[in-house]
């Protein structure tokens, strides 16, 4: 049973650039959530996708956007990168609407460094 996968593992960008991170959910899951984890902190919720639509959003600027594809995989895009965007980006998948037991399972993360 394939777990949550993310690519790339590491990424280095410069300020002002744009970046795309990718996530494939656990087999059978249809909901993808993205989290940002700054060094020494707990993860912070960015947004959640279900049925190819953004269903919930945390307190992040519009520079952060996403997409979910028909096969439930997802992308996180960040435009106009700032130094403060340097963090570990975690993707989590779960089984969505109608179930109360939708525990989220995490991928290994993408480490983004902005210089």
């Amino acid at each position, binding site marked *: 049973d394939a777990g949550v996968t993310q690519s790339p593992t590491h990424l280095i960008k410069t300020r002002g650039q744009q970046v795309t991170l990718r996530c494939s959910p656990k087999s059978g899951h249809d*909901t993808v959530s993205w989290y940002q984890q700054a060094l020494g902190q*707990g993860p912070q*919720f960015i947004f959640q996708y279900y049925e190819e639509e953004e269903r*919930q959003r945390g307190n992040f600027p519009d520079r952060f956007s996403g997409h979910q594809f028909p096969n439930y995989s997802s992308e996180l895009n960040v435009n106009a990168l700032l130094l403060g965007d340097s963090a570990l980006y975690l993707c989590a998948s779960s089984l969505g*609407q*109608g179930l109360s037991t*939708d*525990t989220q399972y*995490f*991928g290994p993360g993408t480490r983004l460094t902005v210089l």
Partner: protein
Amino acid sequence: AQTVTQSQPEMSVQEAETVTLSCTYDTSESDYYLFWYKQPPSRQMILVIRQEAYKQQNATENRFSVNFQKAAKSFSLKISDSQLGDAAMYFCAYAWVLPGYSTLTFGKGTMLLVSP
């Protein structure tokens, strides 16, 4: 807004001994879920244990158990017979659940050190 507080930045335990990690949360909701996740140096966030707020019985998972005190909004994790592989950052998390709308609010974490 819901908040999760882990007041112990770091805890130490010797192999085979027992350690308890603390977590408190603030919410006005009555139906929610609480989780403990483990994040080793490999960065993979691994689910350790989960508790439904409507259940009075404390969850257990092998050597891991919780002490859930709903009125006090407290949710501690007890690790029995600690092993070297338990060394990791542990995060307490809260989820207010509408069907399919759960998102996680995390604490800042507790680093668990395990010595031989």
